[in-house]
């Protein structure tokens, strides 16, 4: 048993939902109690999706447990297939249903449907969200392609066509996946490589069936797609890329790896220094102050590893902490940390991460939304680099992390929370001047809160001293002041002014609890 106040990853069936909701013409029957329907809001609120996830929850209750829950499951499966007419059906269970062992997958397979049925077994008491996503994607691909003949395939050169690849791994609730896909598609287009299938994001079961038409698989997010890529390599002889194109260096390496796999000559342009602005910006004089900035990195495996490389090689930071919450990626993160002279922090406990941040006292934290909160409490600038997703991680603007443009975005996102080079010099120079407000850190918006409060207090004193000077002014009674104090500070000043105006108009000498409510009603009407 593990005490958890907050968790980086949801249970494995949430991973399955991410795959199901990312795809088209597919439906997921989830044997689960009613409370588990909360998961819909992850998609409709965080991603602001305008459609419901394609998930039917059986929502069984305690009173059903005495009876035949298997019949209940079958009823829901039948209704879901009739209503949604999916091309492929996923069937699985959440933590509670796992305990009652109804085997919904076998039940569904015995119902005589003429569509492929993918039965998901995702152990809820030992595995987590990313594992569940990876397993679900793998099971879908395996189910749909297991009978695909593995006969000799011509190369793109032999067929006299452009090479084509699949982009595997992007999902909903994945970090900036939507924009990464566009950026990688653009990048590949520039090198004459076509995209065959993108999956799971936007793919239908029919698209999955087209996966074998590609020459190479691009594994964009190993957390989700690596096991599928390995299976496709073993069974259908499709090789896959292992470099994730996050950062300038990794994008170059990715292009080289891809060209080698496709037996294409590596063009010179891959190495040009003006592909991404990150390279020049980082070389520009203003960036001098970035040298050796202490940075603490924590996130999912892929983004934490990439961040460490970018920070160390491309921005000239000093990495003082590196870790991940994905145990599946610990194997890769440990040696990367060691190469930086660090011990990797592998944990699911955010308080342990916060403790490590405190201990290393970095100047910048690159983490998840939770590290953003921890860093805020500690007064350290932070940029978010990884899931779990927050509504802020789904920006309206185009904002990829991968490829050349992704590197540009990363430069801005990581450097803007810090003070600009010249700004830092000026503050150092002028901090003893009387005009200089102590603790001024324009980049730390949250510390500004203190200043706001001060100005509010000023307004308050000003008004009350005004009200003392003139006899005609209404006077606040003790009750009135007490009632006013219950109003949130950010509107209190406005309420005070409105109430006084109202009291003056109404000819009240005293402002008590009732006057406040009278004024409230007056201004509402």
């Amino acid at each position, binding site marked *: *048993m*593990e*005490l*958890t*106040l*907050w*968790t980086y*990853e*949801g*249970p494995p*069936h*949430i991973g399955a939902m991410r795959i199901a909701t990312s795809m088209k013409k597919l439906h997921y029957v989830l044997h689960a*109690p*009613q*409370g*588990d*329907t*909360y*998961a*819909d*809001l*992850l998609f*409709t*609120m965080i991603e*602001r*999706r*305008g*459609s*419901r996830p394609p998930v*039917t*929850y*059986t*929502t*069984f*209750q*305690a009173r059903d*447990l005495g009876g035949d829950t298997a019949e209940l499951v079958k009823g*829901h499966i039948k*209704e879901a297939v009739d*209503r949604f007419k999916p091309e492929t059906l996923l069937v699985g269970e959440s*933590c*509670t249903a796992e*305990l*009652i062992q109804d085997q919904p997958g076998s039940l569904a397979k015995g119902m005589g449907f003429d569509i492929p049925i993918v039965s998901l077994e995702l*152990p*809820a*008491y*030992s595995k*987590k969200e990313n594992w569940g996503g990876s397993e679900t994607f793998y099971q879908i691909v395996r189910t749909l392609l297991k009978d695909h003949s593995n006969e000799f395939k011509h190369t793109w050169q032999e067929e006299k066509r452009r090479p084509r690849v699949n982009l595997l791994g992007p999902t909903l609730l994945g970090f900036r996946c939507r924009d990464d896909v566009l950026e990688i598609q653009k990048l590949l287009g520039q090198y004459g490589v076509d995209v065959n299938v993108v999956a799971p994001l936007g793919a239908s079961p029919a698209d999955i069936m087209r996966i074998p038409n590609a020459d190479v698989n691009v594994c964009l997010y190993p957390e989700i797609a690596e096991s599928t890529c390995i299976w496709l390599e073993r069974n259908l002889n499709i090789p896959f890329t292992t470099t994730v194109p996050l950062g300038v260096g990794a994008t170059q390496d990715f292009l080289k790896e891809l060209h080698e796999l496709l037996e294409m000559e590596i063009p010179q342009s891959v190495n040009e220094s003006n592909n991404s602005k990150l390279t020049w910006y980082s070389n520009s004089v203003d960036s001098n102050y970035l040298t050796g900035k202490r940075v603490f990195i924590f996130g999912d495996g892929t983004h934490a590893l990439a961040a460490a490389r970018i920070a160390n090689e491309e921005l000239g930071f000093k990495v003082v902490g590196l870790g991940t919450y994905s145990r599946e990626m610990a194997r890769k993160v440990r040696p990367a940390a060691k190469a930086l002279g660090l011990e990797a922090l592998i944990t699911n406990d955010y308080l342990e991460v916060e403790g490590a941040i405190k201990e290393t006292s970095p100047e910048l934290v690159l983490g998840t*939304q*939770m590290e953003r*909160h921890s860093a805020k*409490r500690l007064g350290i600038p932070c940029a978010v680099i990884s899931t779990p997703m927050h509504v802020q991680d789904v920006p309206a603007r185009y904002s990829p992390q991968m490829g050349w443009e992704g590197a540009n975005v990363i430069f801005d996102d990581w450097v803007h929370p810090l003070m600009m080079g010249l700004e830092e010099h000026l503050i150092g120079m002028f901090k003893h001047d009387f005009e200089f407000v102590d603790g001024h850190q324009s980049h730390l918006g949250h510390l500004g809160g203190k200043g706001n409060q001060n100005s509010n207090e000023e307004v308050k004193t000003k008004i009350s001293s005004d009200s003392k000077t003139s006899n005609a002014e209404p006077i606040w009674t003790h009750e009135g002041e007490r009632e006013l104090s*219950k109003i949130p500070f950010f509107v209190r000043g406005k309420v005070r002014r409105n109430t006084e105006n109202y009291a003056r108009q109404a000819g009240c000498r005293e402002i008590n*609890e009732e006057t406040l*409510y009278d004024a*409230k*009603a007056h201004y*509402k*009407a």
Partner: protein
Amino acid sequence: MSGATLLKESGPKEVFCGLTSIVWLHRRMPDAFFLVVGSRTCAHLIQSAAGVMIFAEPRFGTAILEERDLAGLADAHDELDRVVKNLLARRPEIKTLFLVGSCPSEVIKIDLSRVAENLNIELKGQVTVLNYSGSGIETTFTQGEDGALKALIPLMPKSNQKKLLLVGTLANAVEDRLISIFNRLGIDNVESFPPRQSTELPSIGPKTKVLLTQPYLTDTARELKNKGAEIIDAPFPLGVTGSTLWIQAAANLFGIDKSIVDSILNPLISRAKQALAPHVEKLSGKKLFLLPESQLEIPLARFLSNECGMEIVEIGTPYLNRDLMKAEIDLLPPDCRIVEGQHVEKQLDRVRDSSPDLVVCGMGLANPLEAEGISTKWSIEMVFSPIHGIDQASDLAELFSRPLRRHDILNPKTLTSN
């Protein structure tokens, strides 16, 4: 009962489970901690519903069951014991610890009452350990508060004093306001349950008169009755009428002269109606569909139809307690359609067929409906906002008029030439 049509429906549901109540209960009693004994799903649910990241160390958490806990039950009890002791050592400010049962803990039958009992003996009163179930196989959303309050009742001291007890979590400012109105009426001994500190429980006895502030407290009301308290029959304090009837019901029982009640309430009523007027203008004649979730659906429909002139298409309610809801249903317009239970797909079909102007629903359904051009209001907002009492009637109405106003701003009606 009035002419309301009561229907039942079953099928796939789309509602929160009772664990979600922790989101407001922990704020009400800052000296209490809520420890869910459950799975990673439970932990993920609460953090998703509550936006937990804003807390440094939240006053709720989950003891996540792992594979080895499922292997042997004796181990699970010992493990829970260990987790609780670690937690209490780390958080000495905790005065009351609620062990909250979940779907998995109920299914594998972890005996939380036994764990609580043993811990209470060991802790010798330094911390009180209680238990209740917030599991989704037994409870819906606000029912979690019912369970938590019921668990506190055995600890309430006995008293023979005549008093008015307000039962159900209210926003502190609203609670102060309601108490000050009762004091003005001449009812001096007014207390609240749950209290603001878990250790300052109000006393109870045969002279305790209970006014329920929330409609979801079935078990709590029954237990209070068993302790000798009288539950006052009244609608719930939402809107001008509901709040007035609610206050009057208590005043009658305390023998307060009608003229005094009128002299105090009438100015509040006319002021509230004045403030309500602009919202009535916006809401009047608009069609409203309430999907089941918070159990506040019936009182809200009553307010929005009777005082704001909305036309009710359907009132969904997760379950219907006819005794507690009788006064509310009596006030509903005739032929109002109340559907108990849910088949979410069929219900959404009815939503689309009736093309309502506003749908009250859960967070999972709101954006998909908005994307279809239907304005929505989150039902979870009702349990976080100060909406109770005569003075708050216009604030309550504004929660519903705002989405309509916004819709009009963003979609101005343009004259077309053809």
